[in-house]
């Protein structure tokens, strides 16, 4: 939902400063130059918050606030007074009419954003080109860990990804880093001294730049208490030490909402190709299953009539994999997509051992599979 912020001030300068302050956030700024305009806009647009000056021509802020609070349809709109009128008596008088906060000019834009952010759930504008969307897009990860070996393990383990992994050893360095860099995901060691991981988590969640950034807790597998505490305070996920890199990579992709389908699905000419990796972990099976229907539907929708299941890298056949392949075949049959299998000698031998797979026919490579599918098409 895009929030509406109504700025009522006779000074165009103040209205420009307010627009500037919120330009990085997902909200619309509405403007009125006096109380009459402010009330009209409030009635028409029902803003989520009003920033109201006091001294204005035509109708001043106190009169507008009084009218607003006496209108049943508008009285619940939170109002922040933003005014040069800051004498104690004056503030008390206005507070009695009903305002959520009071900012005395001069003001820093950061203070304004912070106070508004306490009332409405301000979200930074999604900067599409800068944000990672697919598993092949660059992203910035921050590891807050005082043990260099763990950081090195994560950095080394993720070096095949396009992600930049940065490491800091303390909470102060982490806050500084997040202040100057847009971070896509943060991993914090829960064993930092004095439970500072939890303090850092809270600081990051109150900062608008990192309010929605996924944060993982890094913790020893056996430390159930720390894991429970992290879940209670709202960490996005937990990565246990010793680090299982494929599992961590998968969790990161999920937390950053990355499209991982390109790992498994691609199209070549009029063919959809589903490729499976050497080791089909439950995570892989789960991901492929989740993408399967939509990818097949997309292929058919764009005029494709053939599919190849490329299993030449797969080292071992097991029941979850068989089940997933049977689902894939069924899905293709439902939309009249003809398919072929590509495999290796081990896999072919494994297939003979199961009732459901003993009759599967494999090709040695994708080209051979393609030719077979073309023949099938010609015969049909």
């Amino acid at each position, binding site marked *: 939902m895009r929030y509406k912020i109504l700025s009522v001030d006779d000074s165009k*300068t103040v209205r420009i*400063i307010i627009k500037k302050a919120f330009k990085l956030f997902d909200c619309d700024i509405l403007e009125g130059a006096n109380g009459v305009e402010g009330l009209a806009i409030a009635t028409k647009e029902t803003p989520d918050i009003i920033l109201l000056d006091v001294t204005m021509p035509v109708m001043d802020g106190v009169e507008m606030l009084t009218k607003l609070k006496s209108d049943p349809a508008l009285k619940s709109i939170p109002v922040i007074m933003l005014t*040069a009128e800051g*004498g104690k008596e004056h503030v008390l008088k206005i507070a009695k009419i009903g305002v959520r906060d009071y900012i005395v000019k001069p003001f820093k834009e950061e203070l304004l954003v912070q106070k508004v952010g306490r009332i409405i759930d301000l979200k930074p504008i999604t900067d599409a080109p800068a944000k990672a969307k697919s598993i092949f897009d660059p992203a910035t990860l921050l590891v807050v860990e005082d043990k260099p070996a763990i950081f090195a393990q994560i950095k080394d383990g993720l070096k095949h990804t396009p992600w930049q992994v940065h490491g800091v050893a303390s909470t102060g360095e982490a806050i500084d880093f997040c202040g100057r860099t847009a971070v896509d995901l943060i991993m914090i060691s829960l064993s930092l001294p004095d439970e500072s991981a939890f303090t850092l988590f809270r600081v990051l969640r109150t900062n608008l730049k990192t309010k929605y950034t996924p944060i993982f807790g890094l913790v020893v597998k056996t430390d159930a208490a720390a894991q429970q505490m992290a879940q209670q305070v709202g960490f996005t996920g937990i990565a246990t030490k010793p680090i299982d890199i494929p599992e961590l990579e998968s969790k990161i992709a999920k937390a950053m909402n990355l499209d991982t389908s390109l790992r498994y699905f691609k199209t070549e000419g009029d063919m959809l190709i589903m490729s499976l990796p050497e080791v089909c972990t439950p995570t892989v099976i789960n991901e492929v299953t989740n993408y399967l229907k939509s990818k097949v539907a997309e292929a058919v929708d764009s005029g494709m009539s053939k599919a190849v299941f490329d299993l030449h890298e797969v080292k071992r056949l097991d029941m979850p994999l068989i089940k997933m392949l049977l689902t894939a075949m069924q899905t293709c049959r439902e939309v009249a997509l003809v398919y072929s299998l590509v495999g290796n000698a081990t896999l072919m031998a494994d297939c003979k051992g199961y009732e459901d797979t003993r009759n599967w026919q494999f090709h040695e490579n994708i080209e051979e599979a393609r030719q077979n599918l073309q023949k099938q098409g010609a015969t049909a």
Partner: protein
Amino acid sequence: MPDIQEIPDAVFQETITRAVQEVFKTMLSQNATHSPMTPEETKACLGLDSPHVVSTVGFIGSINGLIYLYMDVKFATQCAANMLGMSDAEITEAGEEAVNDAIGELTNMTVGTFKNQLSDKGFPCKLTIPSIMRGSNFQIESISTATRRTYRFIIAGQTLIADLLMQPPSE
């Protein structure tokens, strides 16, 4: 309520200095330094002979007064550009109206900060709406019953004059 005549000059100087410093630091990230003037310098700085922007905001209540801020057009334009986050070219394109509005708001904030300190000292009053004047050859004179205090500030090598005209409320 205390008597305005009993407030020493030093308090007004301290109050306006704090107001100017706070506003320029917060809105423009610039430091303002009070630069005392001789009577001759004071007289000279109020007689304008080059293009200036003069902005004023009044306060009405237990003290009635006006504060004028004087700045030359170049400094006023720089302040406006800084405040609005505009480049030199953008502020030039935005025109005199944008500069006037920004300087009016800067004055509103300065006088507001000054007035709020007076209110908290027991002199409650309200602000008026800013007025802006531009010109090259003019002098603002006060009425005989008003008390006039003039202060000079140096901000980023430029001069800002704050001219306080005050009188007690009429009986």
